[in-house]
Each structure stands twice: as structure tokens, then as C-alpha cells.
């Protein structure tokens, strides 16, 4: 009796599994048929707030269309795209990572620069340590975090510091600007060099770096060939570069080309 129970249980399990597999296959068929596939956008982590606003505005203007946003560091997104991830649009925080995707033959059209971002110093709200500019970061009593040199923001920060011949001892080379901002928010470090757009969060204050000392990051965007909705991708990129898109980018602290 027990044996029979086991046997029929296993049988059920196998049936269920087959049903799941078949079901997945069916729903895929429906998706590519009737309703329009969502526009899948891979965007750099520093675009999180601005692209969420842009996608909402886009969906409002284009009823029935859906924008699916994926945020991560540009190198990780570039890697995922080269490994075959299907997306319609890629917006990167630097040119080299976009170039990797172009070289892999994933883009459908040449990338265009759609925004620029400047570096800024993130300090805890109130700026109790009275940090006024890059030179202050060399003060020995301060704990400063940078992004690792492998990450675009870390590369730019080191360029800016080197140009001023400043030696800053970073207590932690974080893997993303978000991690630096988090450590500033919690007060674990006194300051961190991030993008100007990253300082527009609660508990953090941005200290501007003069334009003579600043490094400008260029953000390219491109329509991709492998996604399921090329037309949607093209429309979304056009919207990002339209007056409406530019206004939203500006609102979130980006500088426009």
C-alpha cells in the first residue's frame, strides 16, 4: 500500500512537471502573438530614479505599452547582454561598457550620448565636517570612500583627484556608487565621491565640485537587436531624447549634451 502511494505520488509529480513545462511553452506563444511585448530596458544603476520617471511618463503617453526596467552597474549589464540577455534598449554610464556591447554585435543602431553626469561629493546631511571641495578629502582625519577603479565612477574620481595632485586614502573601494552613498547615509564614512545625481537622496547632501576640477561622465543609449520589441525600443529612445525626457533627466541632476 505504501509503495503504491509513493508510486502514484511520483507519477503525479511527473505529470505536474510536464504540465508546467507545456504551460510555459503555451504562454510564450500567446505573448509573442497578440499583446505587444514589453519594452525591456537595461539601464545603469545611476539612472534608477530618472528612468523610473521617464518610463512612467512614456507609459502614460503610450497606453497599452509597458516598459520593463532593469538596473545594475554598467559592466554587469554589458556582461549580461554579451551573454545573451534579451533587451530592447541599453543605457550605460560610460562609453567603454557600451563599446563592449557594440563589439559583441548586440546593438541595432549606433549609440548616442543622451546625458552627462558630473561628480559630486556626498556628505551626511548637515555637512558637520565642513567639506567644501575636493581638496578637503585629503584631510587626514576624514574617512572617505570611493568606488573601486574598476567601476566608472571610481575611475572618474581618481582622474579628478589625480588632476589636483591630491592623495586621498580611501577606507573602502566600493563596487557601486549606491554602496558609497549607503555608507555616507549611515555615517560610517564622512564623505564619498559619487555622481551628482546620487546625492539627491534622503540623509545625504551633495557638495559640488567646481567644473574646472570635475570629470564629466558621458551616458550613451542604443537600441538593441536581440529584444522582442525593436519598434518599442526605438520609440523609448526617441522619448528619452525628446524635450519631455530631457526635462526629467535635468530634474534628476543630469547635465544635457
Amino acid at each position, binding site marked *: 500500500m505504501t509503495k503504491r502511494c509513493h508510486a502514484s505520488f511520483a507519477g503525479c509529480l511527473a505529470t505536474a512537471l510536464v504540465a508546467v513545462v507545456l504551460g510555459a511553452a503555451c504562454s510564450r506563444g500567446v505573448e509573442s502573438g497578440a499583446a505587444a511585448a514589453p519594452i525591456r530596458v537595461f539601464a545603469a544603476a545611476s539612472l534608477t530614479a530618472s528612468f523610473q520617471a521617464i518610463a512612467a511618463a512614456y507609459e502614460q503617453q503610450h497606453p497599452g505599452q509597458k516598459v520593463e526596467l532593469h538596473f545594475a552597474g554598467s*559592466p554587469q549589464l554589458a556582461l549580461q547582454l554579451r551573454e545573451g540577455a534579451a533587451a530592447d534598449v541599453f543605457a550605460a554610464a560610460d562609453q567603454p561598457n557600451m563599446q563592449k556591447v557594440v563589439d559583441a554585435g548586440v546593438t541595432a543602431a549606433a549609440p548616442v550620448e543622451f546625458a552627462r553626469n558630473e561628480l559630486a561629493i556626498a556628505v551626511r546631511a548637515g555637512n558637520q565636517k565642513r567639506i567644501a571641495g575636493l581638496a578637503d578629502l585629503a584631510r587626514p582625519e576624514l574617512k572617505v570612500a570611493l568606488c573601486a577603479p574598476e567601476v566608472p565612477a571610481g575611475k572618474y574620481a581618481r582622474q579628478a583627484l589625480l588632476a589636483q595632485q591630491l592623495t586621498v586614502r580611501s577606507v573602502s573601494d*566600493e563596487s557601486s556608487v549606491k554602496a558609497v552613498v549607503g555608507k555616507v547615509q549611515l555615517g560610517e564614512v564622512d564623505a564619498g565621491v559619487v555622481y551628482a545625481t546620487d546625492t539627491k537622496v534622503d540623509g545625504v547632501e551633495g557638495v559640488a565640485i567646481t567644473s574646472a576640477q570635475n570629470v564629466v561622465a558621458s551616458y550613451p543609449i542604443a537600441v538593441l537587436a536581440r529584444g522582442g520589441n525593436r519598434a518599442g525600443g526605438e520609440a523609448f529612445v526617441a522619448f528619452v531624447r525628446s524635450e519631455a525626457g530631457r526635462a526629467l533627466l535635468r530634474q534628476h541632476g543630469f547635465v544635457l549634451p
Partner: protein
Amino acid sequence: MIGRGRIARTGLATVALLAALLFALPLLGLLVRTPWSELPALVQQPAVLRAVGLSLVSSGSALLLAMGFGLPLAVWLASGRSPLRTVVRIVVTLPIVLPPITAGIALLLAFGRNGLVGAWLDRWFGIGLPFTTFATVVAAAYMGMPFFVLSVEAGLRAFDRRYLDVASTLGASPLRRFCQVTLPMVLPALRTGALLCWARGLGEYCATQMFAGNLDGTTRTMPLACGLAMESEPEVAIALSVILVAVSVGVLFVLRHGLPGQERR
């Protein structure tokens, strides 16, 4: 009836195979993409060696902490039943089930510069834990020690106390009873706990990054170096992953079959 039995067996085998593939395929993917010819050179890069060294120091120290502090804790937990013990056991078990990022945040809020204890350490002694190698040890111990404590406690609870009574009638002191009777009897549990604790500490990523930071040569352990390498040099990340896989397989083998030359349980 025979037909149904065969269908059921085939079904079971199919499902079992699919489940096994879930675990085998990622491993295979990693091994297929490993640049084997360049592996020795990749592994010998100074930054990789620093990460490996740091990982060994960090997970090894965490294991020592677990043995020094976790063993007494396990003995106390196993020595009776009380509501206090239940509460302590839950608190000690927590890191096993918590998402590691939560553990990292909790560590920061306790020992960070503005943390519960950390603020006083900073004010009175000027000591800051975060961004030091010791912080990676604390993170590894926090995440790994529960395995040691729970494993040893289970071993102690299963241990027949009558052996102690016999030793006691033979005039052995409590310390001698513990060292010469209890410890040898719970050695398998001790070994399992130690290996799991060490392995968990070695793989620690999230809590370390959150609590200790990420600085080459100070806090950038193997998993952190692996995560960062994925941003720029995936080959290095794959090489580090292969080392971690090899170590993990070694640990699991020893757990199951004992050290070479050791009598099999």
C-alpha cells in the same frame, strides 16, 4: 499494475534528474568557461593572492573565535532546558536564516561608528571596527559560528551522560571528564561544525561588504574580489570561483568521508 509501477519509477527518475541538473548545470557552465591554460597565471596575480590570503586569515580567525567562544556557548546550551536557553538558541541561529545583507546592516548598526556599541568604542577608545580586517573576521564569525554552536550542541545532547558518571566514580575532575570523555565522544559533531563554520566564513560576501567594506589587502576577501572582478575581468572572477568551488568540494568530501588516513565513521 506493473505498467503503472514502471511509469511511476520513470517519472521519479525524470524529476530526480531534472532536480540534479539544476545543481550540475551551473557548475558545468563555470567549468566549461574556465580559462584553464591561463588559470595558474590568473591565480598568481598579486591582488588575487592578497584576496586568497585575506580569506584564509579571516575565515581561520573566525573559526578560532567559534572554538574559543562557541564551544562554551554550546556546552551551556546543551546543559539543560530553560526559556532563556531557547531564546539564546534562536538568536544564535538567526544568522543562518537571515538574508546576509540584513546581517551586514545589523552588524553595522551594532558595531558601526554610529552603532549601539560602536559609537562608544569610537568615543572612548577611538576604535572603529568597520574597514578593518578584524571586521571581516567578525562578519565571518557572525555568519559561521551558528553552524558550529548548533552542531556541537546537538552532539552534546546525543551524548550518553552515563560515561561521565562512570568517569566521576573513578575520581576524574570535571575538567578532566570534559577533556578526556566528553570531547572525544563529540569529536565528529565538533569536526562537522568546525568545517561548516569555516566554509560559511570563507564564502561570506554580503555582510562583509556591508560591514567591513571592500579594500584591496585589508577587507577584500575572495568573494568580494570575485564580485568586483566580474565588473572588469570576468576571467579573474571565474578563476576565483573555481578556487572557491574546489575548496567547497573538498570540505564536503571531508565532511562525508573524513580526512585521508582517518578511520571512516
